[in-house]
């Protein structure tokens, strides 16, 4: 029987100077690498494949399978790119991981690069978080000094260069092909697929792009074995993951647990909702996943369970909102986020977010007209299903799920400002006057 919480990646986060090589080694760090380097690369890949690890960055694609798509007979160099552009609203797991235990990531990157025969790897970290970047820079430096990176790693003859690269502010760079463009010094706009990155990615060479958490999970699989990993979680969603709880729970934070844990369990672990309040809605995997309500408290939080509930596991970022919160306000604010982050490449996203923000602003201000909620849904339908990448689909998910669960509240927007209907002061963690918030 697996424990309710399974700290593996988070296990050493409380350790003194956990970010240092010494501290990491003291708790068995780089054992996974040592083991991996005794194996053939393809065996490392198969181990990860057999463990059932799926991508933790949102899409949930099996990591080992992604590696297996790299054509090893391609004469070009192979590249590993770690996606540390954590920017999905609500998502806040990779940043603390890189801050507390950057060596977990570095070790994972070395093993993963080895598995795909890459000799150059990159860790792309969003730029707006300088301290985690420092910690990863320092960890990479330590790893080079300790012979864990560079030429002839641990005397095995394997060479790897690892470059830490800071982004500069663009949510879209979390999309893997946009990230590749960004890493090539271009505007971070997504690329056409095919060709897929596994075949023609960075510098048109075979490239694997994995999320920070996925890569950081790899050392534990090597160290403790695929059976151990697969023993956790559910049938098709194996292993453990970091659930990020934020919002109106008593103890927001990072909860590492087997996949399939329920929201009810997580809220309970987080000490329940803040005093005197009850759950209104939550995002299961960041703002791009359709919101759920109290009726979904027992849905298993895994890839299949959430798909069955009409939403997605996404980045496992549970943003929890209580009954004080105006869903019209949050929806509009998320849409402003998508409008701000739209890369501009394709029509539906660039123009669609422009339109939706205006429609939602009217509703928030209580200036909606008869039929505006239907129009909102109709415009959402005009936008959906045609975009270049999935960014705007996240925006559409926000709108459609919010209206699905809370249509009457949107209808209120035809006569009453959201801040009058649900005073914004009630949602804040500190006392503020309502006049202040929307003056």
């Amino acid at each position, binding site marked *: 029987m697996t424990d309710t919480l399974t700290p593996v990646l988070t296990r050493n986060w409380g350790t003194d100077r956990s970010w240092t090589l010494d501290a990491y080694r003291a708790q068995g760090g780089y054992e996974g690498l040592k083991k991996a380097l005794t194996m053939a690369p393809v065996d490392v890949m198969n181990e990860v494949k057999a463990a059932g690890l799926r991508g933790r960055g949102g899409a949930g694609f099996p990591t080992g399978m992604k590696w297996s798509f790299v054509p090893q007979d391609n004469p070009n160099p192979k590249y590993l790119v770690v996606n540390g552009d954590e920017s999905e609203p609500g998502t806040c797991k990779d940043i603390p991981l890189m801050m507390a235990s950057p060596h977990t990531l570095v070790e994972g990157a070395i093993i993963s690069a080895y598995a795909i025969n890459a000799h150059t790897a990159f860790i792309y970290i969003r730029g707006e978080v300088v301290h985690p970047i420092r910690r990863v820079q320092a960890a990479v430096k330590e790893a080079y000094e300790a012979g864990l990176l560079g030429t002839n790693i641990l005397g095995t003859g394997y060479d790897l260069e690892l470059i830490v690269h800071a982004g500069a502010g663009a949510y879209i760079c979390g999309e893997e092909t946009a990230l590749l463009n960004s890493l090539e010094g271009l505007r971070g*706009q997504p690329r056409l697929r095919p060709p897929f990155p596994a075949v023609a990615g960075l510098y048109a060479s075979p490239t694997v792009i994995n999320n920070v958490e996925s890569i950081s999970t790899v050392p534990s699989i090597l160290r403790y074995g695929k059976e151990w990993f697969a023993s956790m979680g559910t049938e098709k969603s194996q292993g453990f993951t970091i659930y990020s709880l934020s919002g109106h729970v008593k103890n927001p934070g990072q909860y590492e647990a087997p996949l399939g844990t329920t929201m009810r369990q997580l809220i309970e672990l987080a000490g329940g909702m803040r005093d005197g309040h009850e759950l209104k809605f939550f995002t299961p995997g960041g703002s791009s996943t359709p919101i759920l309500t109290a009726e979904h408290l027992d849905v298993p939080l895994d890839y299949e369970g959430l798909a069955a509930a009409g939403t997605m596991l996404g980045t496992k970022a549970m943003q929890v909102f209580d009954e004080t919160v105006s869903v019209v306000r949050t929806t509009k604010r998320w849409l402003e986020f998508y409008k701000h982050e739209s890369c*501009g490449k394709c*029509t*539906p996203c660039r*123009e669609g977010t422009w339109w939706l923000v205006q429609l939602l602003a009217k509703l928030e201000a209580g200036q909606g007209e008869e039929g505006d909620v239907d129009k909102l849904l109709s415009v959402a339908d*005009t936008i959906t299903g045609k975009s*270049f990448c999935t960014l705007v689909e996240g925006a559409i998910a926000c709108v459609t799920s919010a209206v699905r669960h809370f249509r009457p509240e949107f209808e209120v927007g035809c006569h009453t400002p959201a801040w009058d209907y649900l005073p914004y002061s009630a949602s804040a963690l500190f006392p503020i006057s309502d006049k202040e918030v929307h003056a």
Partner: protein
Amino acid sequence: MSEPVPMAEMIQVTIDGVEVTVPKGTLAIRAAEAAGIVIPRFCDHPLLDPAGACRQCMVEIVDMGNGRGFPKPQPSCATEAAQGMVLKSQATSEQAAKAQADILELLLINHPLDCPVCDKGGECPLQNQALAQGRGETRFDGVKREYPKPIALSDLVLLDRERCVMCTRCTRFADQIAGDPMISLVERGAKQQIGIYPEQPYDSYFSGNVVQICPVGALTSADYRFSARPFDLVSTVTTCENCASGCQMRVDARHYEVRRRYAGEDMDVNEEWTCDRGRFGFVSARGDDRVTRPMVRKDGELVPVSWPEALDAAVHGLEAAAGSVGVLTGGRLTWETAYAYSVFARTVAKTNSIDFRARSASEEEARFLGANVAGKTLEESVTYADLEQAGKVVLVFFEPEDESPAIFLRLRKANRKKGLAIQTVSTFLSRGSAKLNATLVPARPNDIPQRLAELDIDSDTIILVGERATRIPGTLTVLMDKVRATGARMAWVPRRAGEIAAIEAGCLPGLLPGGRPVTDARAVAQMADLWGGDIPTAPGLDAVSQLAAAAQGDLAALIVSGVEVSDFDDPDQAEAGVERAFVVSLESRLSDVARRADVVLPVDVLEQTEGTFLDWEHRPRPVNQVVTNPRSPMTEIRVLAALAEAMGVDLGFRTPAGARESMADIPAWDGPRTEELAVRPEEVDAKGVVVSTWRELIDDARCLDGADSLLGTARPEVARISPQTLRTEGLATSSYVRLTGPKGSVTLPLLVDPTMVDQVVWAPFKGRDMALASIGVGVGVPVTLAAAPDPKKEGEE
């Protein structure tokens, strides 16, 4: 020889129930076109890499060819057709029709409603699409995006940002096709726009293409803006007269005046592109110097006279010359007109002193042209397609971006798509060469024959040699030796549109039409028979010799068409010749020859006539009459025929069509060709600095007069030297350099170029305020360099 091109694997696709067979790799949108189904699109362009950005071309994919379909509509511009694929367009699929209507609605929410004042109105894909598929009324009642309008991307191209649909055709063209990414997407999201870096305008030689391919009215041409409505324009397909590339053009005229020129579509030649010189350089005949009435010199002044009086004066002067006549035809005539001059020279002026070369020229070149260029058909020649298939292309005295832009684009395409290796034997890696990823074979101009001899090439190589080769003796000799030794192919690429046709027409002292040597008795007899009457057999003088003889008083008269004295290496001698001889100038403008002529006979400009050019491939390129104003002057052929008649000779035809009929009677020449003149390269003095130069595409050419916006995009005039030359010539602290030749000096800004060969200075041949010919230097000529102060500041002091 090249490997045979393998037949593409063919696949079957069904679109709207229509089955089509297309090569594997074809995009769905193109497969639909093959089935006669047009899918609306904005970002898609067949010659650009797919972008998938506008999302207008969504189709329903019922079956990807594997039994499964896509649940969502897919962009047909970015989806490859697959064997057995079943697609539905907007015609048969509700899903596709809705997706397209949705995208159109979204494209229009921020689009201004300024169609009535927009240049694109009436020929706008977005407007057409809105009419065909758009909603009657907008649902969008929000706030539209606004920008200050418009911004200048260059002197030629303006951008109205709020009209832009972000299709990125322009930026992809600039980056992929022309290699000039001076325009880029800037900003992001709703604010995304096309932009330049403000300090570096979009001064690409190919910038006009982005105006043409813009699917909305976002990019407009500064010259054409607000000057006509598309439905008032009459379009004519014709050929560009600005170089020997042979670009097909679509010329739009209104009220007997050309308003704009677009690139025509000819996939064998220019594909769908053309250069800015060809596109915008068409107003030179609109200046005050346009000649519309005949003129005769009286008391030292040219005065307008009647046609009979002018013809009388011409006849009088020519008869007085009594056979001591030369004919200079310039390099810009159509095949028909050149032929008319060829006939006129032989049957009326009774001379072989005819030459089209208003530029550097040599006997070695004349014989090379007779032996290796004249009398060729397209099938026997190197073509654009051959360039794409070649194993390697070597450029000798040839800068395609400046001298034949369509060749440049084709070479760039071949390099980009197929990795074609390109070598340039030159004095530095020019911007054009860099964009071709060319390898520089560095050589001082005088060493080029030697470098050429040493090249490692084979039968899969094509050598493109430019007209400047004539300046360095032995180059063409070495070239042909190399061609014969290796089996490589060769094409001579002149700069001017009429040169190949002039060669074919026999506008050389040693050449009759079709490659017939004047020295061959059978050739002479054949032509005499066709033309009726005797024709001269005595060797004629080439252009430079004619002018020299005229200057000495040894040649009494000249008949000159389309020649500028400043085009010759020795303009002073040319001027002296024109001054001294009796000159009949057939001109559309008061050129520097016409100004000094004794009789000026006004002729039409190209847009007023029809005919044929032969491009560098020897491909016939039709010239069609664009402007049909009854007040147009006579065609040059008709003027020649009138002059002939006044001299008592029937030219045999009076129109281009008549000239063609006459040419059609000439059988292919099966006799011996001109013999080459083997010239040994000169021993080069290794000391001192020599000149490297060529005509840049946009320079002080008379045919660009008046095209001020275009001239504003000319490259800065500089003198380039190597870092080593900077030191040896003691120029290290100077930002200007003075070049001194036998006849004077010019001062230019100094540019140190690390790719430049030592002991060479490169400068443009003809700038706005300078001409190398005026100081007596040209390719390979010694020059002295000296540090110079900024001439502008000097002037102020």
